[in-house]
């Protein structure tokens, strides 16, 4: 058959010498590829090569997902690739006022379609700054509570020229134990260590949970999974672009109304918390990191239960005493440093507004939060604009 003529009717016969020379070359090539791969570590560079925003539209939130076949999305630990797949990596328009939203799963938008997330709702409201620029919000939230994870993503986000940063959080992100919980933090030890040292953050730069790769771990053969993740991220870009779907929407159990009679938070029992108990220094590091870029800090709204044991806990996540202590400390801290801080903890009080957890909003209530946050963005943007003019 013509297709296989080169194989079955070759110009030179296949003999043992040919097989031996091919085998030797294959082995040599295999060794070279592995060693060069380990020495060069091309994954960050490969991660910055992306078909998103070029061949197809960028994602409206950072890649995250467990069931890739359904959500056309996957979790990976290569932040360059994550950002390059995001629409924030597209060219910034001249009249664009770029706002990046940092935070947890509530910002990322669990159970919300991209347009219904906080960033989507802000964009839908079509805000403009006083000097006529269009506010364009970008969802850079990422699930799992950890301010250190947020700080890490903020550090990368600054490469995309934001005009304003909105950082949403809740008590869960402030626990000292939570800081290293995110796989994103664990698998990116160098940038996290750099942030810890630059901003004197109260974290251990040699934490054993950091995943540091030896020479052998960096061999091509050992990093094939990371490489496959990069490729899968690109491949899932097509179904994402065609369907607009980037997460699974399963049936879910609604957040608890009746709560356990448990008054502990992390390893703490009721007591007066100090600034050392909460990672407030990570917020301070974030504010220092953004420098002159205005930043809005927001304590995000949460479900306030009136069910069983609601005298002990606000919801399934937080006992009342811990949350009250957190708000007190955050108020003091933000006042001391003069931060632009919004405490929206009870800003969306209706129980029906919350879906599967005490911080995940329905589309309608996400729209309401969008108005609250959007107004703050415009206010701070105008304030910053006036300061620039002065």
């Amino acid at each position, binding site marked *: *058959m*013509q*297709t*296989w003529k080169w*194989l*079955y009717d070759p110009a030179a*016969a*296949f*003999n*043992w010498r*040919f*097989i031996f020379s091919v085998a030797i070359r294959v082995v040599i090539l295999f060794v070279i590829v592995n060693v060069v791969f380990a020495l060069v570590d091309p994954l960050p560079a490969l991660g910055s090569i992306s078909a998103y925003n070029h061949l197809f539209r960028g994602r409206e939130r950072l890649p995250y997902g467990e069931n890739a076949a*359904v959500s*056309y999305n996957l979790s990976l630990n290569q932040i360059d690739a994550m950002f390059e797949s995001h629409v924030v990596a597209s060219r910034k328009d001249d009249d664009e006022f770029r706002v990046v939203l940092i935070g947890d799963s509530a910002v990322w938008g669990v159970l919300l379609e991209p347009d219904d997330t906080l960033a989507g709702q802000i964009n839908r409201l079509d805000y403009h700054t006083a000097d006529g620029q269009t506010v364009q919000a970008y969802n850079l939230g990422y699930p799992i509570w950890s301010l250190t994870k947020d700080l890490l993503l903020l550090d990368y986000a600054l490469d995309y020229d934001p005009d304003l940063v909105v950082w949403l959080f809740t008590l869960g992100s402030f626990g000292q134990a939570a800081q290293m919980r995110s796989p994103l933090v664990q698998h990116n030890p160098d940038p996290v260590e750099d942030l810890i040292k630059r901003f004197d953050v109260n974290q251990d730069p040699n934490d054993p949970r950091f995943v540091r790769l030896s020479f052998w771990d960096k061999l091509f053969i050992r990093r094939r999974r990371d490489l496959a993740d990069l*490729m*899968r991220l690109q*491949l*899932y870009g*097509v*179904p994402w*672009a*065609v*369907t*607009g*779907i980037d997460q699974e929407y399963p049936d879910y159990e609604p957040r608890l109304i009746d709560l356990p009679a448990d008054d502990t938070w992390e390893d703490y029992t009721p007591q007066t918390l100090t600034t050392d108990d909460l990672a407030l220094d990570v917020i301070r590091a974030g504010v220092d990191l953004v420098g002159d870029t205005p930043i809005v800090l927001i304590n995000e709204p949460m479900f306030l239960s009136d069910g069983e044991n609601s005298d002990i806990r606000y919801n399934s996540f937080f006992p009342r005493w811990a949350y009250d202590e957190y708000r007190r400390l955050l108020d003091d801290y933000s006042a001391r440093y003069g931060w632009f801080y919004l405490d929206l903890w009870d800003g969306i009080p209706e129980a029906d507004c919350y879906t599967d957890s005490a911080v995940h909003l329905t589309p309608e209530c996400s729209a309401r939060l969008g108005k609250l946050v959007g107004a703050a963005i415009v206010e701070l943007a105008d304030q910053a604009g006036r300061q620039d003019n002065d």
Partner: protein
Amino acid sequence: MTLTHIIVFVAAALLYMTLLPQHWRKWALFIGSVLAIFWLQPPVRIDKFDFVFPVGTLALVTLAWLASRDAEQQWTREDVVSVAVMAACIVLVSLGRYLQEDFRITPSRPPALPQVAVMLISVLIVLALVDRLPVGRKRLLLPVALLILALFVILKTEALAEEASRWLRDMMGQPTHLARASELQWLGFSYVAFRLIHTLRDRQTGRLPVLSLRDYVTYAIFFPAFTSGPIDRAERFLKDLQALPGLDPARLTQGGMRIVIGIGKKWVIADALAYMALNDVKAEQATSTAGLWLLLYVYAFQLYFDFSGYSDIAIGIGQLFGIKLPENFSQPYLKRNIAAFWQSWHITLSQWVRFYVFSPLSRFLLTRKRKPSPTFLALVCQVTTMIVIGLWHGVTWTFVAWGLWHGFGLFIHKVYSDRTRPFYIGLRARPRLMRAIGIAGTVVTFHFVLLGWVWFALADIETSWDVFLRLFGMG
């Protein structure tokens, strides 16, 4: 077939080539194939059926051999040994019951030895009774063929397969409400069935060579081609089997290259394209016409690379063992008309259907008192043939629609080429125009095939029709 299967088969081939004396090679292929069908069989939710199905395959193949023997062919010592070897292999596999999961070749724990013994004895008694039936062997051909067809229809028809699954679950004391058509995963049955029908029909017409049981079984279940073809012809297979070569660098290179190319096609290209290929869920979720077209293009290439990759692997492994399986694909998407496409897509299935459906049907219609017109004859034969190819994939309306699509396509092409032949002969003097028309033909043919995949890819006719309309901005 997984990468593990391929690695083991290649390793086995190397041992086979280097260590095995010539006279043991046929036995090695026979025993290897018998064991491999147990190993390749995926898990089945009906208790013990991932053991029963391969046993069923062996029983059915032996039954077909009994029926398709030449009138003068008697049992030989080799045939008896072959039966004993098959029985020994089945017992050996069943002993995996007493091993840890990692050392078993069946996906689940095989039945206990007494159950296996009862199963074996029952099968042997039935086969012995069939062998001693006081009717001519030729009289067995049709019933056996019908039995195979009946099983085929049951397995390929969702409602019947679900009912059969319910019945089997009931028999095995498992909850019947969990019965699903998809759990009757009798691996390789479609291919084995068509090989057996070919031998039965060729015995009827006197074309089948004399085959020993060992050679017949090896042909029917030859492990590289067991899961995804190609559908070889017995006489061609036998020719290779009679002259199994030893270690040969050219064969090693060619086989190895085909396997490497097949792995690349299947596990690199096809599996990557699978992320983006059209399916029911994506078809429903797609928000734009352009997006739907993109999914469909990707599906077309995913299907080609997946299937032709598997064929390459089968051909490559076969070659390592000294069997040169027939080609199944020859650049089908570059063909200039739909007839040429069908001569280069799943070639062995197309040829099978041409031999056993198209030609007999044409002959039948032509021998009738009122001979049909050539146009009508072409229409009936093309459409019937393509519907049979469709139904081979599954007894569903979508496969019927796919068959009709291609049947009418072939018919229209035939009418068109008959009428335009003088025009094309005239074009020979104008090679550039000829070439341009050829390219246009390739584009049109590819898109005709592409639109046909809408019926093939999707689960039901309503979804297919909806997608078909949406591809043209309607619906």
